[in-house]
């Protein structure tokens, strides 16, 4: 009896600690944001919002963002769904490599793609120049809308691929055979059976891609030129107001949260119309391809993946070029790396220090919260569940702005520290890890834990000794994804960093924006290598070549 009560209390304490952390690091900064936006010298005001909506320049940035994000999302679906379908249905040549490349593409920082495409297709890009020299013809400008669209679509379709091919794997082969029996095959089967079956996943992927496209800040900043998008406006509003009146930056942040919240709720509503679960006893078997169909399908897959991978390859290539000042010159050298290491020795250790700390906290908290939500549902834990969803709808730069507003004054000054970077990354990443942990935990029958308890294990031991190891695979794949998004994170970090807390991604960005492409390429290459190594590590530990989010 006493034992039971003791256990109960431990988890109660855990609940309260977790709740307190959410209140301090999430709700307090958000409250601060609201106060800044709606109050001026203690007076309630909507002046900042009026200010925003009365200027065409600002209004336009919202429609611009919506336009480019929706179109990019549509493109990713058009490219990614057939790719996933082909990949799961047919024997594609070198399918293992294909998948690894797709995963790599999904993991790279978007703005690296942007700047690589500038080097390739920009005004003095190698392809532009080559075509002009050969044919005298000038290809259309890639700056602005087209450029953002190109970069986002190529950057994000791998995500759609990973989501959809995961869902396709859950379709039982007998469903396909049944439909074949009833005379429905090929494209008709794809449209009438397979697409409806994976609809929930497509919706989830659509939202994910749209949110990322909408919140992406590096790409439009580099390649957008005159085409203003909303995240850039947030960034500018914040930096132009720093030190004086932060009200406007806060107001813009609130508008951003409102927009993403609407999108999120809309997705929830749509998704609630498509809820069913599938579990394949026999997965779909890949069929060999023959003739012209084989050529076309292979060509499609490799062309699309190649196109998405091109920027990364090109960046790596340029990192070995000889440079003179900011210019590339003929010949190869390791100068860029030498300069990169000399200029910013901190970036690499910082990346690992901040990244690993954030990752460890994310995993630990996600497991604890998943346990509280799934196995110990009560009032406090339901609140935690709801709070844990909030970061979904807060764009990265807004997280940064809110944290700065909350923690730059006493009693708790964190701005400029490693801690605030870690906190920001944890906040941004934790909802995803919690969702995947919750999903994994829900699939583990309670009777497994009960079996352990009936065999004399304590509740804690049963959970950490049996359930957590069973969740390990789910946690691990989630952790790798988290790790990669953490080390390539830009939009929050750019608001919080200083010279002491600079990371690889920030270093790349800084050098790209200064036009120092050689050093930037060297950093980007290091980042890419770190990503590849993480991926290989994951495949080695999880003993699989399949990655899922």
């Amino acid at each position, binding site marked *: *009896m006493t*034992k*039971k009560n003791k256990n109960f209390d431990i988890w109660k304490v855990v609940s309260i600690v977790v709740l307190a952390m959410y209140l301090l690091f999430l709700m307090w900064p958000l409250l601060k944001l609201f106060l800044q936006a709606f109050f001026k010298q203690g007076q309630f005001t909507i002046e900042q919002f009026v200010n925003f909506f009365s200027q065409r320049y600002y209004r336009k940035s919202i429609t611009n963002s919506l336009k480019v994000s929706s179109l990019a999302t549509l493109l990713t679906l058009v490219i990614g769904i057939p790719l996933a379908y082909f990949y799961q249905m047919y024997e594609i040549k070198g399918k293992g490599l294909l998948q690894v490349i797709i995963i790599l593409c999904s993991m790279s920082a978007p703005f690296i793609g942007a700047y690589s495409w500038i080097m390739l297709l920009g005004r003095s890009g190698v392809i532009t120049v080559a075509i002009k020299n050969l044919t005298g013809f000038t290809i259309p400008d890639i700056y602005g809308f087209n450029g953002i669209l190109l970069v986002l679509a190529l950057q994000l379709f791998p995500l759609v691929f990973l989501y959809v091919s995961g869902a396709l794997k859950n379709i039982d082969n007998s469903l396909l055979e049944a439909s074949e029996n009833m005379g429905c095959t090929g494209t008709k089967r794809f449209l009438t059976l397979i697409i409806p079956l994976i609809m929930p996943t497509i919706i989830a992927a659509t939202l994910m891609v749209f949110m990322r496209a909408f919140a992406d800040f590096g790409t439009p900043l580099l390649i957008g030129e005159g085409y203003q998008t909303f995240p850039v406006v947030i960034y500018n509003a914040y930096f132009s107001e720093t030190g004086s009146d932060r009200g406007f930056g806060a107001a813009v942040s609130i508008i951003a949260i409102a927009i993403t919240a609407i999108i999120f709720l809309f997705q929830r509503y749509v998704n609630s119309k498509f809820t069913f679960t599938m579990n394949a006893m026999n997965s779909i078997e890949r069929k060999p391809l023959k003739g012209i169909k084989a050529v076309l399908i292979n060509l499609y897959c490799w062309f699309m993946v190649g196109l998405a991978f091109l920027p990364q390859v090109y960046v790596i290539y340029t990192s070995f070029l000889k440079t003179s000042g900011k210019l590339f010159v003929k010949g190869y050298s390791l100068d860029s790396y030498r300069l990169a290491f000399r200029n910013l020795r901190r970036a690499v250790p910082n990346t690992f220090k901040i990244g690993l700390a954030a990752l460890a906290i994310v995993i630990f908290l996600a497991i604890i919260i998943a346990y509280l939500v799934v196995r110990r549902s009560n009032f406090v834990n339901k609140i935690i569940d709801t709070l844990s969803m909030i970061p979904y709808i807060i764009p990265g730069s807004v997280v940064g702005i809110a944290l700065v507003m909350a923690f730059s004054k006493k009693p708790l000054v964190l701005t400029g520290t490693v801690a605030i970077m870690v906190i920001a990354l944890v906040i941004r990443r934790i909802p995803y890890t919690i969702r995947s942990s919750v999903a994994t935990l829900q699939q583990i*029958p309670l*009777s*497994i834990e*009960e*079996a*352990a*308890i*009936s*065999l*004399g*294990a*304590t509740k804690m*031991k049963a959970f950490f000794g*049996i359930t957590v*190891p*069973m969740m*390990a695979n789910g946690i691990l794949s989630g952790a790798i994804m988290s790790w990669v998004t953490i080390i390539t994170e830009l939009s929050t970090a750019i608001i919080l960093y200083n010279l002491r807390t600079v990371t690889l991604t920030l270093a790349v960005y800084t050098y790209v924006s200064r036009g120092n492409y050689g050093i930037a390429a060297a950093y980007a290459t290091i980042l890419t290598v770190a990503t590849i190594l993480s991926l290989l590590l994951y495949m080695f530990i999880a003993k699989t070549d399949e990655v899922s989010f």
Partner: protein
Amino acid sequence: MSVNIKINHAVKRYGDNTIITDLSLNIKEGEFFTLLGPSGCGKTTLLRMIAGFNSIEGGDFYFNDTRINDMDPAKRNIGMVFQNYAIFPNMTVEKNVAYGLKNRKLPKEEIKETTDRFLKLMKIEEYRSRMPEKLSGGQQQRVALARALAITPNVLLMDEPLSNLDAKLRVEMRTVIKEIQNTIGITTVYVTHDQEEAMAVSDRIAVMNLGDIQQIGTPKVLYQRPTNLFVATFIGRTNIVDGKLKIEDGKTMLHFPSGYACEMDNILDEYKYDQKVKVSIRPEELVVDTKNKEGIKAIIDDAVFLGLNTHYFVHTDDGDKIEIIQESKIDSIIEKGTEIYLQVKKEKINIFDENGQYNLVKGVINDLDLYTGD
């Protein structure tokens, strides 16, 4: 060491919903005791209350003289076999079996020795280093049983352990379970909705419906002298026919609607008065007469030859459908459409009051009556 389990006036509520209102039960030491009932009758709920995974809203649960209501599940010393086996998928067969022993912090050699003994007993030695996903359903079942028994529990609890197996394995495994239980002599509480399975393994069965125990008894008693209509229909197959009980010249006569009547000499004295009744006649309790026109007139709709027995499906003039089981004869099967006359083996049939609440026939033993007074 086995224990007896005593449950006095147990209550189970989920919110405002009362699943079990007042349930008492006494399970003897070393007994194979089965909770049998349709789904939703509360049998698994009761089992989980004994295991400690469900809270107890009222009443007392005892293992011997120890009240276990508030005892931690880990301390109750029970072995439990779950419907989905709940084998730890991240451990080998051997580690699964050793898990409970390790929690007791026993010396290494003892753990090894006990684990080996139970792996051998359940005939799964050769799979000891396999991961559970590489095992068939029957093998997983054996691992689950070995794991539950290895800790030498006081009580073995089994929650529909065979329901995930195919028919043939189910029969095989229930024999294994029965044998092991006999060998070890452990008090066992077994939950199932399959009456045939219950009959095959149990020393005694408690038939449950809607959160109440209807009857407790040996398989033989439940089958031959069910306490009410529910038990009669739930255990085995039976035909229910309307009838009338009449006292004529001091004799108790049972009248069937067709006019056929027979004298009953085993009706309890307190029920000897004129009344409408429900008669439960099992398929093998009917005698088919094709020559003398004595009995209930019926027409054969279908005849199914099953080797040892032949099943006849017939209908009477009143439209009652009746099933008959006859030992197969060497000469021939009675043709469809044949007119036959049915008599009953009156010492075997059971007669219930009009609402099916109680049996009017002598010889009903319901162990439940032993503790309803206490």
